């Protein structure tokens, strides 16, 4: 019987949540058969079996978050330990790996081992001796390096935010009875375990919302031509291509074209520099019940309308069936969000860091509009743009949005092709 451990599903991944067991105790599996679905901060992946054999015990429940290297199930390998040499080799490698990773995850305190930050020996020693959480330290050295003096200052004066906390307690104490009253008067229902993806979403959202000074603007666009154009081709397109010609595809296409003229919206903020990207990779938000994914249409500017419609269809399908890979979601430079899909007519998007803007395409609504002095029934849609005001100003954002608006309004249902 062999214990199988949680695999490392990405460079920086340290834990995974078991989403689903695809096998049960007693099931026979072949090598490479999927055993379970694991959800990490980055991706959801199927974990394949590394052996032929029979599952004898499942050690981690669905919904449980398990450290990389911790055992998740046991398997009785065909032929036992004396089986064919090849199988034994695999078995040994797996075990060695387990050992190694076990050692790694046994390190006492993750906070005391801050990966990825360059700490000098003295800083390392001081935070160890005083049990300091380095996240609370502010680095004043070169490139924000934490210097010995920073640690000494911290030790002498306490964390930077301490004064606030010191002021807060009385207020918090006053509040406490109210909270407990509420607790007793509100009957709590089901408590939902926060999944890895949810945690990651939460972290990113807090970071974006707190770090970026968001500014917001909205333009109303006459989408009547768009509606007519799409209606004209919709049925035949579906028949020929096998997927829908969505309104959203037109907006994504328009954005990818207009970004060429306003490259500053296709950039990222790095503190000291603003990097303008040559590639136009559009992130699109796709919700899957309780999760939000932002897969990327790579080089959207090089694709035809059909190509874009196809990418959207493929990515959305992958997202809904948990098949997106890290690659599918990497490299986005600007986000277009199809909030209209669920009927919203106005929304304020949170920018997807390190991007500098997000465009929300709202629901198309038929309403009376004045054209000159005439009242007409037109299909109207709101385009809502959130911008990072550190990088972009209202002027360029307005020009960009206006250009998208013109692209949509100038579609010609009689002449334009959808191919």
């Amino acid at each position, binding site marked *: 019987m062999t214990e199988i451990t949680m695999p490392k599903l990405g460079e920086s991944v340290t834990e995974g949540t078991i989403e689903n067991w695809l096998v049960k105790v007693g099931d026979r599996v072949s090598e490479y058969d999927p055993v379970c679905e694991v959800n990490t901060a980055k991706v959801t992946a199927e974990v394949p079996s590394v052996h032929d054999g029979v599952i004898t015990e499942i050690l981690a429940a669905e919904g449980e978050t398990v450290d990389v290297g911790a055992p998740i199930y046991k398997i009785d390998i065909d032929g036992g330990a004396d089986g064919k040499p090849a199988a034994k080799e695999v078995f040994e490698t797996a075990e060695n790996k387990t050992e190694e990773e076990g050692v790694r995850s046994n390190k006492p305190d993750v906070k005391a081992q801050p990966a990825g930050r360059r700490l*000098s*020996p*003295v*800083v390392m*020693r001081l935070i160890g001796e005083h049990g300091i959480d380095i996240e609370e330290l502010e680095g004043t*050295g070169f490139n924000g390096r934490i*210097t*010995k*003096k920073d640690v000494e200052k911290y030790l002498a004066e306490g964390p930077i935010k301490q004064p606030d906390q010191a002021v807060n307690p009385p207020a918090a104490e006053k509040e406490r009875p109210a909270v407990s009253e509420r607790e007793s008067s509100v009957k709590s229902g089901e408590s939902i375990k926060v999944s890895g993806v949810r945690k990651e979403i939460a972290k990113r959202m807090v970071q974006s919302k707190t770090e970026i000074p968001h500014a917001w603007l909205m333009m109303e666009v006459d989408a009547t031509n768009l509606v007519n154009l799409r209606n004209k081709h919709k049925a035949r397109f579906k028949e020929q291509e096998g997927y829908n010609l969505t309104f959203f595809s037109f907006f994504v296409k328009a954005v990818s074209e207009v970004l060429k003229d306003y490259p500053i919206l296709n950039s990222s903020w790095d503190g000291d520099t603003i990097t303008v990207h040559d590639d136009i990779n559009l992130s699109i938000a796709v919700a899957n019940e309780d999760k939000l994914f932002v897969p990327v249409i790579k080089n959207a500017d090089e694709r035809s309308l059909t190509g874009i419609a196809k990418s959207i269809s493929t990515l959305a399908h992958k997202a809904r069936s948990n098949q997106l890979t890290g690659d599918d979601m990497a490299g986005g430079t600007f986000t277009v969000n199809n909030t209209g899909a669920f009927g919203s007519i106005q929304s304020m998007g949170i920018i997807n860091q390190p991007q500098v803007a997000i465009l929300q395409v709202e629901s198309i609504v038929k309403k009376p509009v004045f054209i000159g002095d005439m009242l007409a029934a037109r299909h109207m849609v709101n385009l809502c743009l959130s911008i990072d005001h550190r990088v972009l100003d209202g002027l360029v954002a307005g020009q960009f949005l206006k250009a998208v608006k013109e692209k949509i309004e100038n579609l010609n249902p009689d002449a334009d092709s959808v191919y």
Partner: protein
Amino acid sequence: MAKLSYLDAIRDALFVAMEQDDNVFVLGEDVGKKGGVFKVTEGLQEKFGEMRVLDTPLAESNIVGTSVGAAMMGKRPVAEIQFAEYILPAVNQILNEAAKVRYRSDNDWNAPMVIRAPFGGGIHGALYHSQSIESIFVSTPGLKVVVPSTPADAKGLLMAAIKDNDPVLFFEHKKAYRLLKGEVPEGDYTIPLGKADVKREGDDITVITYGLCVNYAMQAAEQLSKEGYEAEILDLRTLYPLDKEAIIKAASKTGKVLLVTEDNLEGSLISEVSAIIGENCLYDLDAPIMRLAGPDVPSMPYAPPMEDYFMMNPDKIYNKMLELSEY
């Protein structure tokens, strides 16, 4: 206390030492009638006579060899080598004889002698009159190597060197001779050999150096202070044997160490200081140990812009100090 130049302080030390002890005598090229090419020994021959202030032939091995013999017989010779780089013909007498005689004779013999030599550049002296040669001598147990950085230190250390019962090389920075002035205690005044000295207190960075560079580092530190950084400056004073305790203490205090010498970088004395810090202070270091030194070219050039490029100065030290402070 009188305000003396670095040169006057050295002369004062010689006067006091010769008055105190009849066994002390001075020998070297032009030290007597001329009073030395830099006038360090001016007036000594008039005061103490030709038998205690000897003009010698231009033969350094002879000057040092004579000194070794006289010292072993109970005299306390103070030899002058006119320029430090001229010492090379006498290296055998220094390293093989003077430094090792006590060890070789199992304590039966010793050589209480001092060899004074002006070293260093920045005086348009070019190849034969600008070198730093201390690194040749700082790996021979039995020998002491001393470099003063102030007039008071020059007097106190030279008197201590003359009273020491083993050979001491005493290197005087020739640019410091008339550049540095300061209060110097009168009469008998000694500073213990083998002890480094904190010349300035600070808690942002530590600068460890010796000789004229101490003064340059002090100037740079005042400049740096305006940027809000305070430098601790440790003057090694004795280059061999090194004051390890003081080096470790000073380096550990700030965790950011800059080592400065006018010598060529590779294989210089500060490389050894760096090794001591690396071996003893790893868990107190907050930045890589930085070294600032002359380039690895054969000699100090003559042409002024090229000499400036080679020679240490306060600006160079300041820039490096700031870099380290901001690290």
